[in-house]
Structure formats: C-alpha cells, structure tokens
C-alpha cells in the first residue's frame, strides 16, 4: 500500500479518519487522567507521611537490632506467625557452630535436666528428648549415668532419609523438625543410630490447652499428634544468647555448651567459660559411635575421678535432692 492510496481512502471515507482521531484523543485523555491520578495519589501519601511524623516507637528486629519506627507506619503483618517462625527457624544463627560437652564424672542422675526439658517442650514424663541412662560397658567395669540427647550430627542420617524435607540441618549445626511438614512416616527414627527421636503415638501433653497456638519450630511446641519430636539444642534460647534449658538446669555442672567457632564452652552450673579444645584434650573426650561417620556435635568426658558414688535409679520419676 503506497502513500497515494492511503490518502485516497482518507478522502473517500471521512468517517474512518474521524474514528482514528477520536481514538487518538481518548488515548491522550487516558494518559492525562492516569498522570493526574498518580500525582494526586503521591501527594496524598506525602500528606499522610507528614501527619505521621511525631510519635516514634523503638522496636527489636528479628536479628536483634533496635530500630526506631514511626508509630503510624506500623502495620500488623498479615503473615501467619507460624509461617514466620518456620522461615526464621530454617536459618541458623550466622557464624555459629553449637557444640555440647557432657562431663560424665559429675552426673549423679539428679534428672533436673530432663524435668526442665520436658517442661519447656511440653512433653509427658515418659517422653524424653534427653534421658540419663545407666551404663555399664562390661561386667568388670563400673557403672555410670549418661545423659543422652540428639547428637546434632554434621552428617545426619535422619535428614537424608526424610522424604518431605521436614527434618533439616541448619548452618549453625542444629537439626530441627518442622512438624507442619512432618507426615509421621518415622523413617528418621529408623535411621537415627542414637535413638534420639520420639513419636507422638497419643495426644501430646495438654494438647487441648495449647490447641490453636502458633507453632514455634525452634521450640517444637505445641507438640503434634502423629509427628516426630526430639532435642533441639534449645534453638530458641541460643538465639537469645542463653544456655539451653537442660544445661542451665543441671545442679552438678555436667553440661558445657558453646560455640565451636569461638573455641569456648560455658558450664551451665558454674557459668564458667573454658576453651573447648583444651577441655576436650585434657579430659580425653570421646563421641558416641563416631565410626558411623555421623560426625556428632556432642562430646563426652569419661566418668573418671567421679564426684558421686553410683546409685542405681530406683524408678523413672525425678529424684528429690
């Protein structure tokens, strides 16, 4: 189609030309309206901001920084708190590698660690994230008490077998369980060589009371029927810079907890901080079943020069005194 024919057609059909003009005008008008509305909207926002300046609030962010925010700019998050905690719980605390040292020479089966753990994680008395076992390596050797919890392996078999990515390892070494994802297949229980995991066959403790509460993945509460639970190295307490529940509850100085990167562990009873490498070297520390290649994060100091004579536990209830 050449220039001539177009012109011809315009002349022949004036109505077509006017439609084109009409459309052009409409387009211009639309652009103008949009620009105007945009200007009005931004002006409105500016006015609102001006009104907002005045009252300010100091808030603590998720990464523990204090920030000042105008009170009118605060918006309640539409996000579900459970979802928020799940996302936060997937991220480890940067630059940390938690490690626990258990001194068997000091354990006298006071079971305060177990009580504190069960209280924090809403467990029944017969459910253990942590238990003190009576050990006797061979008939000729002396018996001793051994607290045993999840070893938070660096090569965790439980995480490798989970079909739904419910149990996972974090950058700071903690192995956690997302009970919102857990389907209760118990593969992880079968895979764990330390029998660290428990399964909620029956309704968890006070489940009716805690029904509907937001699920905190770093505390594993509220516990869920038909899912797995286990020791979490008190991930919530680590975030706050506090020692785990069991560690701070021990009356006999059995537990040390700290950061391998800092080469320091703190005793839960005496609050004394010592060098991890020296503690392990001087006391002949060992790990449970290292031959499996699981690379546990828990070290044991042998039951040597014991402070207390061995007393066999009479029943499973926490001992008084």
């Amino acid at each position, binding site marked *: 189609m050449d220039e001539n024919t177009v012109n011809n057609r315009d002349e022949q059909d004036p109505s077509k030309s006017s439609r084109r003009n009409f459309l052009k005008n409409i387009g211009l008008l639309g652009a103008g309206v949009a620009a105007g509305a945009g200007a009005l909207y931004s002006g409105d926002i500016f006015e609102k901001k001006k009104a907002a300046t005045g009252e300010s609030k100091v808030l603590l962010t998720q990464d523990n920084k204090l920030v000042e925010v105008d009170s009118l700019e605060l918006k309640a998050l539409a996000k579900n708190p459970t979802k928020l905690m799940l996302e936060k719980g997937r991220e480890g605390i940067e*630059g940390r590698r938690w490690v626990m040292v258990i001194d068997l020479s000091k354990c006298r089966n006071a079971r305060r660690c177990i009580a504190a753990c069960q209280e924090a994680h809403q467990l029944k008395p017969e459910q253990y994230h942590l238990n003190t076992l009576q050990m006797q390596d061979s008939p000729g050797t002396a018996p001793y008490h051994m607290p045993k919890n999840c070893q938070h392996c660096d090569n965790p078999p439980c995480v490798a077998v989970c079909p739904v990515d419910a149990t996972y390892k*974090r950058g700071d070494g903690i192995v956690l369980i997302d009970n919102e994802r857990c389907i209760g297949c118990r593969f992880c229980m079968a895979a764990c060589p330390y029998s660290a995991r428990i399964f909620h066959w029956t309704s968890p403790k006070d489940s009716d009371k805690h029904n509907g509460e937001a699920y905190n993945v770093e505390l594993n509460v509220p516990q869920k029927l038909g899912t797995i639970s286990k020791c979490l190295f008190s991930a919530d307490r680590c975030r706050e810079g506090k020692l785990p529940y069991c560690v701070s509850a021990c009356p006999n100085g059995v537990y040390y907890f700290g950061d391998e990167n*800092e080469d320091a562990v703190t005793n839960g009873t005496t609050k004394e*901080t010592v060098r991890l490498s020296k503690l392990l070297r001087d006391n002949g520390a060992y790990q449970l079943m290292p031959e499996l290649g699981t690379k546990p994060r828990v070290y044991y100091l042998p039951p040597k020069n014991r402070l207390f004579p061995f007393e066999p536990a009479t029943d499973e209830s926490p001992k008084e*005194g």
Partner: protein
Amino acid sequence: MKKLFYILLLVFIMLLRAEAQNPGWIVPDDQKGKICLVKFTPDMVKQGEALYMKNCQSCHGIPTKKNFAAIQPSPGDLSEPKAGTQKDGELFYRITTGKVPMPEFRNILSEDERWSVISFLRTFHKGYVQPDPEKMAASMGKRIRLSMTYDTARKKIMVKAVELTKEGPVAAKGAEIIVFVQRYFGNMQLADPKPTSESGYAGFDWPQDFPGDKTGKVILGARVNDPTGSMQEAIVRDTLAIGLPTNKPALTDTRAMWSTREKAPVWMILTYTLAVIIVWYFIIYIILSVLDMRKIKQVKNT
C-alpha cells in the same frame, strides 16, 4: 583416778577423730569479717528463699527438714548450729568460692543475691543479730581505674591500674587483675589473676591461636579481683583486633547426601528431568500404540 584418765583420753581421741573427719574448709581471716552493707529486709529473705530453692535445695534440702542429699562430704542442714554459729563473712566466702562437690556461686549469684540467701538462712538461726552495717560503711574506699593495651612485641595484654586518691592518680601496686574475653554465653577468664607491679602494670600472655570474629576482633575486659568488695567496682572493656580471624562457612554450605534440592548442581537437575521426561514419553507412547492397535482391530472386524 585411772578410770577417769581413760575416759578423758577416750573423749580426747573421739574429739580428734571428729576433727579428722571434717577436713578443714578454712575461711581466710580477712574474709570472715565481711558483712552485708544493708540491713536484711523481708523482701531480701523472700528473694533469698527463691534463690535457695533453685540453687541450694537439691543438695542441702529444705532447712529444718533434714532432707539433704546423701553425698560425701555431707552437705548438712543449714538451719543447724554448724552453719548458724558461722559469721556472715564465712558463709559468704563458702557460697562464693565453693568446694568440691559444692559449686562456686561466684558467677551464678550476684553479691546481692548471695547476701539475700544468707538473710534467708539467718531466719532459721536463733539468737542471730545482724552486725550493724552503718559502722562498716566507712571502710569502703579505694577507687581504681583500669586501662588495657596490647603489647605486640611481647604478645602480652598489659593492664594498668591507677588508684584515684585525694591527691590525684597514683599507680596501684598489688591490685589483683583478672583479664577475661567475651564469648557468646559468658566471659572466659584468660589466666589466673595477677597482681600489678610497682608501676601499676600486670601483663597477661595472649594465646596466639585464640579465635576472634571475621576480622579478628576480640572483646576483652579486665577487672580487679576483689572478693571483699572493699574497692569500688573497677572494670574496663575494650575491643582489640588480636584474635585469629574466624570465618568458617555455615555447615549447610557444602553439598551432602542430606542437602536439600537447592544444593543440587544444574547438570544433575537437567539429567534427572530429562530421564523422567524420556521414561514418561515411552509410557505414553506405548499406551497410545495399544489404543491404536485396538482401533485397527475394530476397523478390521467391520
């Protein structure tokens, strides 16, 4: 007469034995006189009771109930005269320093908290009168100011103590200095306490393999070791870049059997997806072929 002599001898031997069975937990004389600088109040007693139940009851039992733990040496019931006849300073020293198997509460309970535990125990001790704190307050004194530097040549942390007297600052000699490093869950004491020299300095060897943060920074502190509390709180904190720079990767950074999908390399994802597509292609192809065969059969039949 001979009989009386034998009886006396027997009593003497028994006393000796009793002494031998109780190997001394000797409180230094200068610690015995320490007293609480405020009058015990009912609030203090209440706080002391709560602290006692949390920290002491597991071994010492509930006072007057005699339900202390059966361990050696026996912790004993603290309402008994054995504890009741001790001075405040003695009890304070024992709580502060501990003695195996009793833990030291130096870092567990603050000084005020230790005094409130004593105030709680004193409610069980008949005839106890608290020494008047007013008279003792005058003995408080000595203000010490500390500063800290790192001596690169000798690899030592040098702490300088200066006493602020009325005449002006003077180098403090013989002040026992403790140096500590801040760690995530608490402060780590670097070495045994050291007294300052004539010039007011105390030097502490700095271990060269000590980890710091990403840039090697370490938060250090120094304070005067002063269990009597007679000196006014003398403490200094400083950040020095003398640690080993530590920047270890997160434990999830390397790929492992248990890694999640995000860690899988591209070639693995591509090969896997391709394999799945090929397998499904053949399955669908076979099903369609079977359907085709049925159609051909139907056509032949008609």
